[in-house]
């Protein structure tokens, strides 16, 4: 049998079921490896002792009917976990221990998974490089100077470095797909309404969606199957018949029509990305799919629209962190003084920037010109997709305009940082599912990803397309384990 850490999530489940390995073997292996990988700064909170205890419990009374039987999983520190510190990587929640569990993580535990720990991310999921965390930058296992992407940077780094067999993130504008693309992993953002938002620290409510981050497409299908559920605690959760994504996974995509939107060929896009995209088309053709040129005319408005809608919602969502009820507080001379001191010290710069933008665009006198207009444009962007999906089954685009960048390279230039999300943001605005799969390496040897966008609740279809492409791409990426120490 191969090394435990080389097994995919699906393989681990199978091996535990077949009693070839125990939950404790797997859990302790991942714990050992995580302990040696502190230099990546991937974890905010480790729950290793509890994980070992749970693994032992599982082994003594195993239930092999569960989909994630005895598998340890670390999750993004944006999911509230009962009795385990949940910070959203913010100072303002540095001491916050929820008494409740998010629906998505509860679904994981209900299906036999074991919490390994909470993974670093950008503060309140605001960032594209994991440089805004109160707990410091996350390092990409690809290179010590490299960002893992964001906001689910800790998740991507931990997954790529094999500190967890799979993980879950959240994606508001690309926060799963962009770090997956940067680290050579698979990341899926489901349709808005597929995974419950209950118990996830909110960033932008109309865009936030949890999703799986895995080593391969099959694992993503399995994890999504467990995560996704109708939840009456979330009014935006959608009650639809959820397929058995992993069981129904198929490489037969013959005759599928795949759209190539011309507007995604942006100015200054590198030849490498062009080539990656062309290769993608060829793989699809090889699989028997048909390539169709399409147009999404409002694409260029997506980023400005996103940077109005998301901060507007965030400015309101983050108002509850006021020092009154829980979390960090700085005492003040009076209530207003306490608010000001608490929020000044409790939030980092990027969060403050977005709260200010959001407050501004909602202000009387500016509301119509910004927020209302952005809502109208959002509708047009949705319509673009709806029109195209009359003609095609899915859309293929690059996941990001470039590969991972250096730590500090963009942290003082918010606009250039925001441009990273240019291909992922429209998908959130339209509420559609999108998956990023590793598709190649650039000249520097850094991974690049391709994104497949599907119709609402058509995750099965984009998983199938990704599954068949994965086979053709045959992405191999061997990391030197430079970060490990004993």
């Amino acid at each position: 049998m191969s090394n435990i850490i080389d097994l995919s999530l699906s393989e681990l489940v199978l091996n535990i079921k077949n009693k070839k390995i125990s939950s404790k073997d797997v859990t302790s292996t991942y714990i050992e490896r995580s302990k040696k990988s502190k230099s990546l700064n991937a974890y905010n909170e480790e729950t290793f002792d509890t994980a070992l205890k749970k693994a032992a419990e599982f082994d003594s009374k195993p239930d092999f009917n569960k989909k994630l039987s005895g598998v340890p999983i670390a999750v993004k520190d944006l999911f509230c976990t009962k009795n385990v510190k949940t910070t959203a990587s913010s100072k303002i929640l540095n001491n916050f221990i929820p008494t409740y569990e998010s629906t998505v993580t509860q679904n994981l535990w209900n299906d036999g998974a074991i919490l390994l720990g909470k993974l670093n991310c950008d503060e309140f999921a605001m960032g594209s490089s994991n440089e805004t965390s109160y707990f410091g930058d996350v390092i990409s296992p690809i290179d010590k100077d490299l960002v893992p992407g964001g906001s689910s940077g800790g998740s991507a780094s931990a997954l790529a470095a094999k500190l967890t067999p799979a993980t879950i993130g959240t994606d508001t504008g690309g926060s799963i797909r962009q770090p997956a693309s940067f680290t050579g992993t698979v990341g899926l953002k489901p349709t808005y309404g597929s995974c419950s938002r209950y118990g996830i620290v909110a960033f932008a409510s109309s865009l936030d969606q949890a999703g799986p981050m895995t080593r391969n497409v099959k694992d993503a299908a399995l994890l999504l199957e467990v995560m996704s559920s109708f939840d009456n605690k979330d009014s935006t959760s959608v009650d639809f018949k959820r397929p058995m994504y992993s069981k129904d996974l198929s490489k037969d995509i013959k005759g599928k029509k795949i759209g190539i939107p011309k507007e995604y060929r942006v100015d200054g896009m590198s030849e490498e990305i062009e080539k990656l995209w062309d290769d993608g088309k060829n793989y699809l053709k090889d699989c028997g799919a048909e390539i169709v040129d399409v147009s999404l005319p409002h694409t260029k408005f997506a980023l400005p629209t996103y940077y109005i809608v998301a901060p507007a919602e965030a400015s309101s969502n983050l108002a509850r962190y006021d020092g009154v009820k829980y979390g960090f507080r700085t005492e003040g001379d009076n209530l207003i003084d306490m608010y000001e001191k608490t929020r000044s010290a409790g939030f980092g710069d990027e969060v403050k920037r977005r709260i200010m933008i959001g407050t501004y665009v909602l202000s009387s006198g500016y509301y119509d010109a910004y927020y209302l207009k952005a809502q109208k444009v959002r509708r047009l962007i949705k319509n673009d997709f709806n029109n195209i999906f009359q003609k095609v089954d899915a859309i293929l685009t690059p996941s990001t305009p470039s590969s991972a960048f250096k730590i500090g390279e963009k942290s003082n230039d918010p606009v250039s940082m925001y441009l990273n999300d240019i291909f992922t943001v429209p998908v959130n605005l339209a509420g559609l599912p999108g998956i990023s799969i590793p598709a190649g390496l650039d000249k520097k040897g850094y991974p690049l990803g391709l994104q497949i966008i599907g119709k609402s609740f058509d995750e099965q279809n984009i998983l199938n397309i990704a599954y068949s492409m994965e086979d053709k791409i045959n992405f191999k990426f061997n990391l030197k384990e430079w970060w490990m120490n004993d």
Partner: protein
Amino acid sequence: MTKDYLIERNGKKYEVVIGLEVHAQVLSESKLFSTSPTKFGSEPNTQVSLVDAAFPGMLPVINEFCIKQAIKTGIGLNAKINNKSIFDRKNYFYADLPQGYQISQYKDPIVGEGSVVLDLASGSKTVGIERLHLEQDAGKSIHDIDPKNTLVDLNRSGVALMEIVSKPDLRSPDEVNVYIKKLRSIMRYLGTCDGNMQEGSLRADVNVSVRKKGDDKYGTRCEIKNVNSIKFMQMAIEHEANRQVDILEDGGKIDQETRLFDTKKNETRSMRSKEDAHDYRYFPDPDLLPLEFSDDYVESIKKEIPELPDQKKSRFIEKFNLSSYEANILVSDLDTSKYFETVIENSDVKLSSNWITGELFALLNEKNLEITESPISAKNLSKLINLIKDGTISGKIAKTVFEMMAEGDKNPIDIVKEKGLKQQSDPKELEKLIEKVINENQDKVKEYKSGKEKLFGFFVGQAMKVSGGKANPQLVNEILKKKLK
């Protein structure tokens, strides 16, 4: 016609224009967006869920019952029910507002324009309703327990309120009184708000402006925030209207502002000016989908609507031949109307109406009781009325029986039997009795026969006295007339 409510200064007459924003707590077991109970008077912070306290990742879920209550109220206000409405966030920071925003309805409320009919001494008047929307209540900040800190009680946080906005159609403190009572009556009939002002279930923001009589343009208004009794509303309006007239008469201008009513000093004072008004940054709450329901849904709710005060009043007038005044009194409170209808199931309507609005109301008033706490049940009052109607007892004796009944809901038939209060209606017995009275008062008989006819009352009185009040007064009259001829 009663006189218009006008303020006179230096020979000029000013009219007062009033509009109300009434905050009515929805009668519901649980809150608008959470399952926490809404029980009044509970220990602080015992009716609070994670949603109410705005913990990270908590989401609001609409309580359908509250929606139904709002629709019912809209129907009761003859208002347009909007099949699609939107919950917005009203953003502001305060210690007792855990989310940092209140979920309310801004541009698209659940209920649109409607009307309420007021019965005034001068006749009826229709007051326009601008809208009704649903919103969450905030918690309570308590500043006077701890000398250094403000304490927060979140029991009310998230409780459903209906904000009912009237058009500026009210013209006097008296009209405000009638309007509030009418609103309360309608909501109590519907079971959508208990209207209990002591417990804060009904509060109002009062908009007041003044203008010279005859002007058709409204003056600049001031809003008096959160007044929690009708009496205070009336006092606040009176003070505020006079304050505004004084300013205008001094050649000044009214500043549009929010004011507070100080109940101890009986005056309003500025809270914040228009310039300092909050920018609430309203926007649709992305945690909630637009609230949509079908016409069929509204129709099904309409079927649950009971007879409302106006309809009941018409029915009472038509069917029972009651005066508009009587009918008004009997329908204004649902429990009174229920009591009345129980009494008249077996009793004469006119007598019932008289006894309820007369003796019973006096008794309740004296004992400071609600009609639901009446010491005399409707069934027993009905029996008493029947004893009068069939001549078993006289109206006068009935009052005595009524007093005894009030001691502890006794059956009047038993009282009459026990105390031997049955009316003497046997003509032979009465004749004997009257003969005795005549014999004992021969001098008076002489006077009577010589023309002093008003002495007739004296003989009736004597006869009643001798009978211990039990003689049937009608028969006594008849027999006396015969005997004294």
